[in-house]
């Protein structure tokens, strides 16, 4: 059994330099060394084809100007958690009615005297390649006497094409648990989390736009998403 190639010899081979014959022969028969060589060659080829670091070009200043202008005019506040909470108080009842009728499930509404502890929170934002409905939204994971709940607060989010559905997401395994629906506009809604859900795995909240087609699976149109962080 011949010894593996010297690591530095593999690097030189990747550059196209000759190395000693025993290494060249070994690479031909060793899957480990030839895989390493192939990866290093990919780096060398990409680097040589790139024209080098000096060929990178700087965008003209107007590009950043346009970005900062656009962000300055956005309604998304930089510190959404500092918004006064009482703004939501009057909307809770309306949201409750909508969810009780629409969802059929038992919806728990967070009142001021419901004992609960926020254990994690997430800022919900559009996906890079998904639709952007504007506004802002956040979710909290709450511990109550009767188990966990998820509260979603949304402000100024434009209307859905069908309806908005809130999901708990396991990003590693693409697992999804439907929690219930939420209306557009300014809303706060709280959904019970089924007992026994592994909240370490299901650690993200996803809001999708669902067509009214009776298909209970996720439409794949994610409007907002965020990872719950303690």
């Amino acid at each position, binding site marked *: 059994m011949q010894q593996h190639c010297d690591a530095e010899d593999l*690097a030189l081979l990747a550059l196209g330099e000759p190395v000693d014959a025993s290494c060249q022969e070994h690479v031909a028969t060793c899957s480990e060394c030839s895989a390493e060589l192939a990866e290093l060659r990919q780096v060398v080829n*990409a680097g040589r*084809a790139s024209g080098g670091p000096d060929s990178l070009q700087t*965008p003209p200043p107007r590009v*950043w100007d346009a970005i900062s202008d*656009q962000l300055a005019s956005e309604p998304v506040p*930089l510190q959404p958690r500092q918004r006064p909470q009482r703004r939501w108080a009057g909307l809770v009842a309306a949201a409750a009615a909508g969810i009780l009728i629409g969802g059929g499930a038992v919806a728990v509404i967070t009142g001021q005297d419901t004992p609960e502890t926020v254990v994690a929170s997430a*800022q919900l934002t559009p996906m890079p*390649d998904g639709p952007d409905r504007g506004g802002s939204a956040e979710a909290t994971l709450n511990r109550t006497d009767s188990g966990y709940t998820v509260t979603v607060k949304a402000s100024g989010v434009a209307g859905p094409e069908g309806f908005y559905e809130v999901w708990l997401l396991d990003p590693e395994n693409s697992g999804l648990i439907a929690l219930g629906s939420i209306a557009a506009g300014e809303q706060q809604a709280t959904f019970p989390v089924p007992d026994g859900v592994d909240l370490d795995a299901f650690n993200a909240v996803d809001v999708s736009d669902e067509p009214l087609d009776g298909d209970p699976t996720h439409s794949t149109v994610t409007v907002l998403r965020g990872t719950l962080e303690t």
Partner: protein
Amino acid sequence: MQDVDVAEIGRQLAAGDESALAEAYERWSRLVYTVALRSVATQADAEDITQAVFISAWRSRGSFNPQAGNVPGWLLAITRRRIADHHRKRRDEVPLDNAPEASHDAPDITDQVSVADEIDELGEPAGQIIRLAFYDDLTHQQIADRLDMPLGTVKSHIRRSLLKMRARLEVTHAAAL
């Protein structure tokens, strides 16, 4: 040291710090813009894509996980999607048999520009050694002679630099999934 700074920018960005976006633009707009320039037909399109990438990055900062990814890899993943969108739109505008096939080379261009950018981050003398090996086609013996360095030092710089560039590509590929 570079890596610590990169991770810090990621954390600040995810936390909604607007100055982190400016910092990310300062560092990586060349990367995004160069990939865009090499993937679309006009400079105006490349500028539009660069603008859209950083706007998207800001709006979707909540989905960026500073533990799992790095900012340049994430920006390039967004860049690839924006370029693909661009080509898709163009395909709709032109008759099918004239449709450009440009989007196929987007990943390769991303690799090229990522490696070029990483060479800039290598520091010296590693950066100079790699430039001589890549672009002047000097052997390690010739590089050692030219820089008056021991052969072993040149070889070890070459290996370590290639590994750094490979790691950079791995992060970029991981962010694209």
